[in-house]
């Protein structure tokens, strides 16, 4: 019989949030442990998401509202699970909570940031801009509490922030804490990371300024992104009127990620619409091996893209990207398979449709489960009471991750209530 009636959810992205609210709304206590200073994960970084192409904050807001109304979900941000002992119904979990240096008295008035003399690279925007060392992760962050990045903040900088705060919300003496949680079920929901695009030496990322990743494109298009949603290229801020998308940038490639990352085709089709909507005279070209849009909705989406005469779909994988040093334009080398010729085409900016790497590729905190060589969780090997959700098991979109999270919530409730 389960001694501990609380479920632990590791990771507060869309999957973890869904699992947490579903469990809590069935009457069980839930703790979320999230490594970022905010909840929402990758979805919070998207400009629009499927299937209604609405801003993802609206979906996140619904979940945050459910958390607030329910009252049975606790969460720790800036926290990492370090150790798990025990078994179903009786897990003992060690969690390290890193200091935020800002307490709950924060009203997000921005005074500390204004006073702060130091800057940090903004990882929420993939380094495309900077924030002050005292910052709010993004304008709709939850919790809506500032953070001080100690690494970016010299001693004086912290003092300047503290002096500027009228609410006594800054506590520079905060130390990392270790807490113990007694839980009955564990949901692994650490999501995914984008494959490191610099590893594809022929695709120019990191060397050619106007080559970005698909996640950077989301930030570049988002109203709360580094350019306020105006799609301009990194080198000179020029409006992007001619864009290329390089599919399978790392995915379906034994030298990188041997599997299909599932979301990239639809993501590029969606992003081609961002640019087409923003600049009516713009052109978008998608270079692909196969356009994988499984499902009726996805097919319709592809058809919609095909109807646009300014969107070109070219079969052929890009295998060479260089920079025109004079204009900073991007030169893409590809074999146009249907026309039978090797072509060099020039674009204002190129987006690499980089693939998904499971969060468990590099961080295997949960020991009682097997991992595939690519780092995915082999769910069939998980110890009783431990469940993995969404992109930890295979690449998946938000919809499928949410469906999976609901199913996993059911299994977790069983673990908590098993007699």
């Amino acid at each position, binding site marked *: 019989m389960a001694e501990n009636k609380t479920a632990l959810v590791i990771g507060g992205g869309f999957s973890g949030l869904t699992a947490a609210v579903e469990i809590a709304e069935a009457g069980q206590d839930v703790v979320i442990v999230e490594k970022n200073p905010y909840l929402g994960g990758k979805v919070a970084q998207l400009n629009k998401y499927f299937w209604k192409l609405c801003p993802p904050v609206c979906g996140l807001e619904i979940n945050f509202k459910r958390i607030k109304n329910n009252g049975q979900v606790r969460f720790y941000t800036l926290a990492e699970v370090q150790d798990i002992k025990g078994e179903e119904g009786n897990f003992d979990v060690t969690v390290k909570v890193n200091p935020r240096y800002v307490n709950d008295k924060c009203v997000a008035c921005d005074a500390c940031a204004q006073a702060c003399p130091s800057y940090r690279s903004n990882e929420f925007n993939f380094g495309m801009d900077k924030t002050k060392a005292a910052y709010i992760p993004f304008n709709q962050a939850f919790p809506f509490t500032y953070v001080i990045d100690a690494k970016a903040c010299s001693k004086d900088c912290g003092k300047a922030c503290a002096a500027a705060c009228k609410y006594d919300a800054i506590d520079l003496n905060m130390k990392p804490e270790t807490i113990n949680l007694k839980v009955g079920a564990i949901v692994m929901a650490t999501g995914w990371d984008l494959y490191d695009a610099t590893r594809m030496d022929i695709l120019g990322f990191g060397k050619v300024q106007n080559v970005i990743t698909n996640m950077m494109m989301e930030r570049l298009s988002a109203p709360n992104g580094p350019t306020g949603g105006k799609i301009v290229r990194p080198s000179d801020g020029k409006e992007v009127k001619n864009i290329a998308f390089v599919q399978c940038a790392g995915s379906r490639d034994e030298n990188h990620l041997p599997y299909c990352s599932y979301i990239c085709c639809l993501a590029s089709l969606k992003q081609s619409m961002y640019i087409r909507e923003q600049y009516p005279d713009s052109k978008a070209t998608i270079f692909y*091996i196969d356009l994988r849009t499984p499902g009726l909705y996805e097919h319709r989406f592809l058809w919609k893209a095909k109807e646009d005469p300014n969107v070109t779909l070219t079969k052929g994988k890009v295998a060479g990207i260089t920079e025109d040093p004079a204009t900073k334009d991007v030169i893409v080398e590809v*074999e146009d*398979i249907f026309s039978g010729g090797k072509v060099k085409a020039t674009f204002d900016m190129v987006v690499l449709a980089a693939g998904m790497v499971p969060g468990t590729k590099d961080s295997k905190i949960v020991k009682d489960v097997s991992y595939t060589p690519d780092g995915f969780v082999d769910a069939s090997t998980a110890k009783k009471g431990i469940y993995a959700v969404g992109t930890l098991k295979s690449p998946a979109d938000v919809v499928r991750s949410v469906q999976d999270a609901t199913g996993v919530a059911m299994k977790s409730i069983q673990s908590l209530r098993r007699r």
Partner: protein
Amino acid sequence: MAEQVIKPDLEFVKGVMAAGGDSLKKCYQCATCSVVCKVTPDKNPFPRKEMVWAQWGLKEKFQGNPDVWLCHQCSDCTAYCPRGAKPGEVLGAIRKQSIKQYSAPGALVDMVNKKALLPLIFIFPAVLLAVLLSAAGTFGIPEGDIVFSKFAPIRFIQVVFTPALLFGLAVGAVGMKRFWDDMKKANKVYSGDFMTSLISTVKDIAGHNRFKKCNENADRFTSHFLVFYGFVAAAIATALGVLYIDIMGMESPFRLGYGTPVKIFGNLGAIGIIAGIILMMSNRFKHAEKLGGAGSYFDWLLITIIAVLGISGFLAQLSRIAGVATIAYPVYFIHLVFVLSLFIYLPFSKLAHMFYRGAAICFNKYSGRE
């Protein structure tokens, strides 16, 4: 779209897969290979299209196809292939099929390159040579100073080896002509200036210009360059021998000192061949993991012939200088066996590439596609 009936030739597919192209079916036509390849023309590039033709057994597509021969197996394609389909190895295997098609009789290509027949490949020329030498009455270890012409008289060498070489060259030349005609039938000719193309081809081959475009396996330039010019030097030494003996009427130029051109070219050739072939072998092992393996049986048969030929030739000279007749003559015999093998198997082994690759490079220029 006009209806097209595809007739797959399964034997062709099996032949390619057996000859080192066993990864063929992994290809999913992404075209990374055609893009990273630096020796392919931009118009209808290879090797992506060859991969799908070979998968489907479209043997007729390879009739008069210069592209499999324009490939120098740099293996940039293999290194970047996302599926481990090894286009470089597959094209190598297709080239074997191409040799089979054009070097008549093609069945000999399979026989020469059959693992099970390996000892026979060398026993045949060895026995042939032993019988002929016995008939000439010189088979055995002669008394006195070590002079190889006591064992195999110069006239004997001329009478046996010249026809052997001419046989190899003739079969290759006929194959090359058939290949050329097929290429003309199968491809559009835009340019058609033969002499200019030929001169440019000779320049390309002499300078190994196409090898220089390889990235992943740039080492191959050096090894092929050494072996190639090793043979050129050896050929010059032989030609000088003919000049001395048959034109200047000297008894044997080979007994002249080491400073004579014959000896200089002969030894430079030997060093080039030996150094080049050793480098070639070590490169194959060094790059095996990344570039799709150390090569097929077809590759290694030729490498072995050249390696034994070079090393035995040099050892024969050393043991002659050392004065050890019991080693010098047998080693010299082995040397002759492998030289004979090289000549008679010339159009049926991988060495046939000299005809077909040469023709393909020239045709690519001639047709104006380059």
